[in-house]
């Protein structure tokens, strides 16, 4: 496969590129879905192809093809150069990519049980049994599904990189929906997006869907008669680790993407409230807030050996003791921002998508409190968890998030269940109110398999180590 990649790179250079790289990607995806006790969908997708980047002046071009022959690879390389030449007609500042050692290496993640080797019948039984149990316990609609990916990549560059990687990912999710007179309620397990990682089928076995099916169906039905989340301008809120993963993803992860900060996503995904001139000095949150982007965490969904520019995975400090100190970057964005090196955060969704800045495993480092200690320390507040809705502005500052379930907290005890809990805030003000942080025993590497970004659209797989947290003075219960 390296021969195709090198042929593409050579053709791009021959057509005038001053730098080129190419990735051959061979990817399998399997997804199964069950509904109300029956397996309803089984999809298997296989794709293989090559994507080539070429740099002429400061203009990039990218071309891809699924026709994997030497001639087609060369044609794609030449076309990437032709596109780069068109880019140079509306050109930007001079660009010298940040240096990275040109390695020849191989990497694969640890997999105990290959998800593709588990019999389909066994996987189908797991989903149909889980949905049947939810149905039997009150769900009007019970859904469960899993996804598994097997990705092989061969990367070569004009600087001499030659890296192959084999990444296996999988995970599962389920949810129970109930219909009331004029509303629907839903409970998901283990979270709205399920749980995914760079692991084998052992991850799905550990989730134990069936053991949780009855509980979430019953909770969904209980929500129909639960009290509405009160509308309060400022109260204490304890947020579970699944919702915290979403909070980190939306209000920290996207905000520290360097391409957004530089304005490269201004017209679509948006920019960032962060200004590079303030890095190292800006207070992002309270002293308890420590966030890293670490693609080396074993089993987390945003882990890999090398990013799609050949930069080795390494941990990057993002927020230290509440101060903003780092960004997610690649070789070109880092260079234009005046940074010394790439953060190794560039990935493409498939052979036919341009690698771009993506989150790796962006997450909170744990603190010292348990969830029960947070509840015991709260006189009057709300505990909420499991994301239901999410909306945040184009600067990643003003957010409003909703959860599936909540509980009142009175005098240090968990009280009645509440439905439709929502909270809203402004990023740094909200993070500044963080005053209790879950401990290491609560640290969970949540995986988000559906992070959308870019044009044409790309789906990214990101990880979010997270713990329950308490925030003070939060507005809750915004109504429609």
């Amino acid at each position, binding site marked *: 496969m390296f021969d195709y990649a090198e042929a593409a790179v050579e053709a791009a250079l021959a057509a005038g590129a001053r730098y080129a790289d190419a990735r051959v990607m061979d990817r399998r995806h399997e997804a199964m879905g069950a509904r109300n006790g029956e397996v309803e969908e089984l*999809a298997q*997708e*296989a794709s293989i192809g090559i994507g080539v980047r070429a740099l002429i002046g400061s203009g990039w071009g990218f*071309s891809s093809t699924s026709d994997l022959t030497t001639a087609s690879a060369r044609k794609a390389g030449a076309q990437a150069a032709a596109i780069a030449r068109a880019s140079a007609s509306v050109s930007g500042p001079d660009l010298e990519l940040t240096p990275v050692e040109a390695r020849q290496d191989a990497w694969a993640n640890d997999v105990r049980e290959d998800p593709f080797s588990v019999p389909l019948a066994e996987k189908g039984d797991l989903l149909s049994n889980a949905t049947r149990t939810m149905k039997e316990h009150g769900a*009007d609609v019970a859904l469960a599904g899993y996804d598994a990916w097997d990705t092989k990549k061969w990367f070569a560059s004009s600087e001499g990189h030659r890296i192959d990687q084999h990444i296996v990912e999988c995970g599962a999710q389920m949810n129970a929906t109930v219909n009331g007179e*004029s*509303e629907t309620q839903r409970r998901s397990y283990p979270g709205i997006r399920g749980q995914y990682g760079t692991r084998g089928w052992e991850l799905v076995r550990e989730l134990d869907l069936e053991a949780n099916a009855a509980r979430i169906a019953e909770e969904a039905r209980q929500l129909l008669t639960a009290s509405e989340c009160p509308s309060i301008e400022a109260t204490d809120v304890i947020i579970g680790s699944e919702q915290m993963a979403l909070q980190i993803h939306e209000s920290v992860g996207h905000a520290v993407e360097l391409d957004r900060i530089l304005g490269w996503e201004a017209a679509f995904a948006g920019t960032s409230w962060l200004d590079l001139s303030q890095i190292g000095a800006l207070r992002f949150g309270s002293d308890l807030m420590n966030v890293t982007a670490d693609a080396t965490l074993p089993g987390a969904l945003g882990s890999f050996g090398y990013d799609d520019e050949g930069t080795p995975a390494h941990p990057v400090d993002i927020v230290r003791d509440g101060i903003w100190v780092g960004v997610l970057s690649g070789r070109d964005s880092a260079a234009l921002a005046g940074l010394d090196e790439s953060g190794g955060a560039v990935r493409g969704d498939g052979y036919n998508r341009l690698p771009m800045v993506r989150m790796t495993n962006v997450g909170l480092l744990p603190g010292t409190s348990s969830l029960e200690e947070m509840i015991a320390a709260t006189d009057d507040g709300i505990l909420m968890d499991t994301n239901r809705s999410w909306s945040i*502005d184009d600067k990643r500052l003003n957010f409003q998030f909703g959860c599936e379930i909540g509980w009142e907290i009175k005098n240090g005890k968990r009280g009645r269940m509440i439905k439709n809990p929502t909270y809203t805030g402004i990023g740094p003000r909200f993070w500044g109110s963080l005053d209790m942080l879950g401990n290491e025993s609560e640290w969970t590497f949540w995986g988000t398999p559906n992070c959308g970004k870019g044009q044409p659209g790309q789906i990214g797989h990101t990880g979010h180590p997270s713990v329950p947290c308490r925030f003070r003075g939060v507005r809750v219960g*915004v109504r*429609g």
Partner: protein
Amino acid sequence: MSDQLLEICERVLARVGRDAEAEVTVTVGTDALTRFATSFIHQNVADAVRRVHLRVALDGRVAEAVGNQTDSDGVERLVRSALEAAALRPIDSGWPGLAPSASAPSVEHWDEATARAEPAERAERIGAFVRTAGELETAGFCSTKEETVAFANTLGQRLEGRTTIAILDGIARTATSDGSGHAASVGLSDLDGVDVGTGATRRARESADAGDLDPGRYEVLLSPSCVVNLLGFLAMYGFNGRAVEEGRSFARIGEAQFDESISLADDVAHPMAVGIPFDAEGTPKRRVKLVDGGVTSGLVHDRRTARALGAESTGNAVAGAGPWGALPANLVLEGGSVSREELIAGVGRGLLVTDFWYTRILDPRTQVVTGLTRNGVWLIEDGRIVRPVTNMRFTQSFVEALAPGNVRAVGSDLTLVGGATFGVGAYVVPSLHLASWNFTGGAKG
């Protein structure tokens, strides 16, 4: 081209043999997109698309497989994968069978020059947009897409279609504001970088130094891009056979759930539409009235939900849509006779909104959605734009927003907006003047 694609379909079906029901869709084309930001082209891509989607049913045991290789080895792997998976599956009690043989409407939204567009032609329009904005920073994209699709199944259905679409979409930015411009058409030659850039630049300048406005209920004048966003939620969570089957939809056929000025249909044959005239299951598309003079009058179906509800498929199956069900790809909201100037003049005290952003549903049944405004908001008083306003968050039921009596006027500015809310199709819509919209917070909290 399509002959070659049908030939691939035939090879796939021949390999499947006679023991299984099967349908196959082959899609080829070019998806090219040039992005610019901080006033230069920073990403520029072209993908030679090739995709084969196969679904088989062995005595009601159903499985799908997707691949991108069409040589004999690729076809062999694809078919084997689908058949082996199907053999291991339980019988699908909801399997509706394959689409019968039927001809599709004679619709072709195709422009040859767009299909062959070079990167320089996209760069040329971006250059014009950037120059038009002068000293203002710009960002956006210009794309050209051509797609040829062939469908065949073992019941003898054979269909082919092709479509093109070109989009120019960008913002101009002052230090305190953004303004957007959008254009989409079947043909790239219809897109004028100067024209789109002029609109974006004007909106950016006119929304500069915006002031805050207290949250609350206001009249709104929604531009076509906002209306597309709104309709996407009605389509996904409302006029969707599966949502109705599962009791999650607000839609009640025969009831006047909307203002009488609202008439909505899915119509691939509309002269401003793009797309092909059949769906992922090979069912020909037809015009489906969803709302007729305010009365909910129809739903969209794939074969599964049609069977479940005793209806006929409307040709709205989406490949890989899974539990989401059928979606309209060509919504057309009937335009009115009111010009933009008259729409503004008709507002007592309200907000003119250019774009919505990050809209997410809070409750599917009531269609309560939260989101933000973007790229220009202005306060209108007594029929005149008086000042720009900073972005605001809203939490609003989209059904209630269009309820009887809540639509004050429908614009005459029927516009093709490329890229519907959930990524399926492109809608044709006018501006709307609505009586009330619930803004629940300012951009600063």
